[in-house]
């Protein structure tokens, strides 16, 4: 190999190395950002316990899913619930790189629910199975089939209920909602509280 090509190869390898090494540095930024940007105030210390039941638990959520939500809330593509009034002004001031760092940080706080977590038997669980929810979100809502789909096991009840309603009504249409919206007509409005109750109790 000519020495110039060797040089180019070496630079490419070190560039990839630098990109790989940069990843943990970003995760460290994510933790600092989570405090600095005020996220703790609503989502709780280390994102584990939201301060209001309508706010989602975030610790251990799929990073790609979180990043999609943050981006969509920032752009207005997602505007349901309190995302427009409360979240948007906050994330509007955060750069995309920092949003990615936040998402990666939250993803690193896993697991969202313990691998052995189970929810109570009953109508909610039956509905979660019969309405095909488990197919995408996994048994007990704890094994989403894609990294862009959220964990729902142990999520806050009021938040789950709001998302189901809004996805069914078309108020929320962002990201992977395109995959979920076409099946929501199978779920009666009266079914939703039981499903939310079941999922919120998966532990």
């Amino acid at each position, binding site marked *: 190999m000519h020495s110039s090509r060797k040089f180019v190869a070496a630079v490419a390898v070190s560039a*990839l190395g630098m990109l790989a090494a940069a990843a943990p540095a970003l995760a460290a930024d994510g933790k600092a950002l989570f405090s600095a940007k005020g996220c703790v105030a609503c989502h709780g210390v280390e994102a584990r316990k939201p301060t209001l039941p309508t706010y989602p638990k975030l610790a251990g959520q799929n990073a790609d899913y979180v990043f999609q939500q943050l981006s969509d809330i920032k752009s207005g593509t997602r505007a349901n619930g309190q995302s427009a009034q409360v979240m948007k002004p906050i994330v509007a001031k955060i750069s995309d790189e920092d949003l990615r760092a936040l998402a990666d940080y939250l993803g690193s706080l896993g697991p969202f629910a313990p691998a052995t977590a189970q929810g109570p038997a009953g109508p909610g669980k039956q509905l979660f199975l019969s309405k095909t929810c488990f197919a995408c979100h996994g048994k007990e809502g704890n094994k989403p089939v894609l990294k862009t789909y959220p964990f729902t096991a142990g999520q806050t009840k009021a938040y789950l209920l709001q998302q189901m309603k809004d996805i069914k009504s078309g108020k929320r249409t962002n990201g992977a909602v395109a995959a979920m919206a076409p099946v929501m007509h199978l779920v009666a409005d009266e079914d939703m509280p039981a499903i939310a109750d079941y999922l919120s109790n998966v532990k």
Partner: protein
Amino acid sequence: MKTVIRTLAVAAAATTLIATGAFAAEKGKSVGEAGYVWNSAGGEEDEALHLKPDAKAGKDVFEVCSACHQPEGWGLTDGTFPQLAGQHYRVIIKQLADIRAGNRDNPTMYPFALPSQIGGPQAVADVAAYIQTLKMNPDNGKGDGKDLELGKKLFADNCAKCHGANGEGDNDKFFPRIQAQHYSYLLRQYEGIKAGKRRNANPDMVKQIQNFSDRDTRAVLDYVSRLPAPKDKVAPKGWKNHDFD
């Protein structure tokens, strides 16, 4: 210097692509795009078509599918999920390959067409073979039955040439069986084909249905939903598939 920058850019792009998992099969062209060739084959579809299928192994694969398409493969009569029972072997392989290659957009279905969920080309062939063992729904979703005379004429003049005199399709030519399919599912696919939104559609069909009115559409699809499948392909009323009990 330029080469260094270019190499770095390629490295950065490659890292991003690998990280986002975008290194899936290459998307083909869409219907309506210059150079689009319907069923241009190649890729996983070709691979699967040349493999010897194992219906027994396909049963294990189908368990994933049964969550929505039901153990019987009947889907839902409201058309949310199509009936797969009775569908041709090659048609199933083609559609699965197209969905996972991104040639047919179906966000709900997409994860379940992926290798991570169902497996590689062998699994695609296997599940298509298992589906051949399933008998069809004797009571599929139908239209309102009010315009069948018009539907019959439209079908004979437009659809029978490819989909067969009874809507039985053609396995060799990859034309799907549409007889006894759920009306609402037919409607959704038909409208997607007409609008160019179903990107793996046959351009001859897209052209043919351009001038169909809403009334024509409802009439012909209602007629199709009522075309009976051959008796030996239809299950008795109330039949349940116990393969996944």
